[in-house]
């Protein structure tokens, strides 16, 4: 019953999206103006219905209703409850339903609360949102119905990929999806502004919280995904330039550029056409990401089903949405009038420079990700990895980081370097010291050296905008900027230290024998079997000590065997100290009874993800600041209206 309820809600939501598109488009014409009133309520109800469908899917997964094909394919009655629920979106159909749910609800929220834009721009925005949603509803209902029944009902389900049975990963896809879909709202605003020729600060202010929100979720999603890959894959790396990782990085790069240009548009009324273009590009990257991950065109842990029909369906959606938006942009870009001017040396100039750098990095990642597909079409099998991405990315990231340190100190419109030169003496000295220190150490590659030095300089420079300010009165968005930029320095420092100072040890040890990695002494104490709810494992007990006098601590890496589906994973064990992480992986047993151990000492590696969290925190602060000042403005307006009403009342009663 629940499944049918969900399916009915999904069909109704799709129908309402159609109505929303039609009514929104007609209401823009003279004759359809009376339809304008229904667009907002329809958008809200559409969001609610999509949520009902999604909750129905969670319900069938929670009670493992094996008559639903999706549950039988992806779940198992013995799975822990949290993974049963997470399993609802840990597959192709469920994740697409999550996508439309978030998209529908975002549209509903826009319809409910956004009152600043002129009504025609709102109608065009909601119609645009409905247009994009409609494509995804069609995709779900035609090519990937999540509620399809199965007959005969199987005795037991297939289970979920063990690599995905991890708490962090249960919340990783929804986080990224919130980011992807938040960008769809920005896209719809851009479409609405283009259609009604209303590209200006009001449009930017309406769009900004959505871009900020999406960017926060993308940042968190990438940070969590990177940490997951780090501890779950057991390879010791934190970023592999895997196509799926790139699929989440590309929208982030575009959103970062958009976030900054939308701020310029909101406060300085410059960069109009560029902001609209970035709005289109950012959502295009979300869709390309979804296409790469979901079409099965790339083999990866994340690519669920290989189904050519689905791939072509998403590709068609991609072509329609992106092609349509770019055509609209080409037609209307000429009518977007120029914004305010600025000098090259100014805050705007720095932001434009970094926007271009971000776009260049985005292009490089996109090229590298798509190149294997193109090459394969031409008959060559290639893969592209760090030897391409690292130097090419750094080529544009290094100038970007330098400008990132200087830009926030510059004034809007026009400035001189000589004004900020004195402020930059200490950061420049820090960069120099960093380079000298790394060269003196010797054996450190170029990129970690540069990264380390720039991280020191940027760390100092990023807090300089607070200099001379009353910290209590500093607006939250400024705090947000400082915290996020500081987070970039922290993350960069972690990355550089990881690649410059990591020590790896690969050994086979007898029971009771000791080995060492960096400052650590590691003793293999025991290897014992143990059992979990749907797996068995061999667990090693490692007794570890930092230095000669440290406290003895215990690490328990496992080698797990899942039985539904049958698969082995290695569960690494981590020990975090203030100055780094010890990372241990248990390998196989050699013929002579020795056990393989792979150990890493990674100084300061947690800074990578700590930096990621700081970047997201900066976003949260800025979002809070913006929303709070918007709310204050709304309250003030209502108060004024109320007082005027009272005065009018009093005057009329006096008469």
């Amino acid at each position, binding site marked *: 019953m629940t499944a049918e309820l969900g399916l009915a809600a999904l069909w109704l939501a799709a129908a309402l999206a159609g109505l929303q598109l039609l009514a929104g488009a007609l209401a823009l014409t003279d004759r359809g103006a009376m339809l304008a009133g229904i667009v907002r309520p329809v958008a809200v109800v559409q969001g609610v219905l999509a949520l009902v469908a999604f909750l129905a899917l969670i319900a069938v997964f929670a009670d493992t209703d094996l008559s639903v094909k999706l549950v039988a394919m992806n779940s198992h009655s013995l799975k822990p409850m949290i993974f049963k629920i997470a399993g609802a979106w840990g597959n192709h159909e469920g994740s697409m339903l999550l996508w439309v749910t978030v998209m529908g609800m975002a549209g509903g929220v826009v319809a409910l609360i956004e009152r600043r834009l002129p009504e025609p721009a709102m109608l065009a925005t909601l119609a645009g949102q409905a247009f994009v949603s409609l494509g995804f509803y069609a995709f779900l209902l035609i090519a990937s119905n999540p509620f399809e029944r199965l007959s005969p009902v199987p005795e037991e389900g297939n289970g979920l990929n063990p690599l995905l049975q991890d708490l962090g990963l249960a919340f990783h896809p929804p986080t990224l999806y919130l980011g992807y879909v938040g960008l769809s709202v920005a896209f719809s605003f851009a479409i609405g502004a283009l259609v009604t020729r209303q590209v200006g600060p009001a449009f930017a202010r309406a769009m900004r919280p959505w871009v900020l929100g999406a960017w926060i979720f993308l940042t968190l999603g990438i940070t969590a995904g990177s940490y997951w890959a780090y501890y779950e894959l057991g390879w010791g790396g934190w970023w592999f330039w895997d196509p799926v990782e790139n699929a989440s990085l590309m929208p982030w790069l575009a959103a970062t550029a958009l976030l900054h240009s939308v701020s310029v548009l909101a406060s300085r009324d410059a960069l109009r056409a560029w902001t609209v273009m970035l709005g289109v590009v950012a959502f295009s990257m979300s869709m390309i990401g979804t296409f790469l991950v979901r079409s099965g065109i790339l083999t990866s842990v994340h690519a669920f089903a290989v189904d050519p029909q689905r791939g072509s369906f998403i590709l068609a959606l991609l072509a329609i949405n992106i092609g349509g938006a770019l055509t609209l942009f080409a037609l209307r870009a000429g009518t977007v009038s120029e914004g305010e*001017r600025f000098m090259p040396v100014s805050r705007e100039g720095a932001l434009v420079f970094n926007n271009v750098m971000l776009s*260049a990095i985005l292009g490089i990642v996109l090229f590298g990700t798509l190149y294997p597909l193109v090459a394969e079409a031409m008959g060559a099998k*290639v893969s592209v990895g760090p*030897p391409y991405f690292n*130097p090419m990315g750094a080529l544009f990231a290094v100038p970007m980081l330098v400008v990132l340190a200087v830009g926030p100190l510059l004034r809007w419109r026009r400035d001189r370097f000589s004004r900020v030169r004195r402020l930059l003496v200490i950061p420049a000295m820090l960069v120099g010291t960093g380079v000298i220190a790394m060269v003196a150490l010797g054996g450190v590659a170029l990129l970690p050296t540069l990264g380390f030095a720039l991280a020191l300089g940027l760390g100092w420079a990023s807090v300089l905008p607070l200099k001379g300010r009353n910290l209590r009165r500093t607006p939250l968005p400024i705090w947000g900027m400082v915290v996020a930029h500081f987070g970039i320095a922290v993350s960069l420092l972690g990355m550089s230290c990881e690649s410059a100072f990591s020590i790896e040890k690969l050994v086979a040890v007898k029971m009771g024998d000791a080995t060492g990695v960096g400052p650590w002494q590691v003793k293999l104490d025991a290897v014992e079997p143990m059992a979990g709810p749907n797996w068995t494992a061999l667990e090693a007990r490692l007794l570890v000590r930092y230095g000669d006098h440290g406290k003895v601590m215990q690490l328990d890496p496992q080698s797990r065997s899942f039985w539904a589906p049958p698969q082995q994973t290695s569960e690494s064990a981590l020990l975090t100290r203030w100055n780094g992480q010890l990372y241990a992986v248990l390998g196989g047993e050699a013929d002579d009874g020795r056990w393989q151990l792979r150990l890493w000492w990674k100084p300061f590696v947690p800074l990578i993800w700590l930096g990621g969290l700081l970047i997201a925190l900066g976003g949260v602060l800025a979002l809070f600041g913006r929303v709070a000042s918007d709310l204050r403005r709304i309250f003030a307006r209502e108060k004024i209206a109320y007082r005027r009403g009272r005065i009018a009342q009093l005057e009329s009663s006096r008469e």
Partner: protein
Amino acid sequence: MAQAGRIKAKHQRLVLLAVALLVLIGAALLAAWALRNQASYFYVPAEIAARPPEPGRSVRLGGMVTRGSLKTAADGVTIAFAVEDGRARVPVRFKGIVPSLFVEGSGVVAEGRLGADGVFQADNLLAKHDENYVPREMKDMTRDQAEQVMRETK
């Protein structure tokens, strides 16, 4: 500074557009050049025998692990084995923890480089994880070549 006021908004937009386009086209050309040099090509043993890649260039090698070829060195973590495709055989050396489904007679993709001594130095081994996760090249190979390979090697 003085001329700042005289630059028209339209001109500024054109200049910005030109600079941005120039940088992006430059990035694209650089990327294309780097991709030609840095992309890692996929080889089967017969191709390595016929046209070996230059030593030190990172490539990937795919094939079946030859039965009886797997040897573990005295340190317990270095292994040597051979990869074959029915026509040629390439010796491989790998130091690390092998994937759980890496066994003799099954498929493998090794990432690494061909050494000057003709031994392939693998940095990473990809084995078939489960039905849903197969290295892409191996999927094609099991379809096109595996049966033939098995027939010829048995």
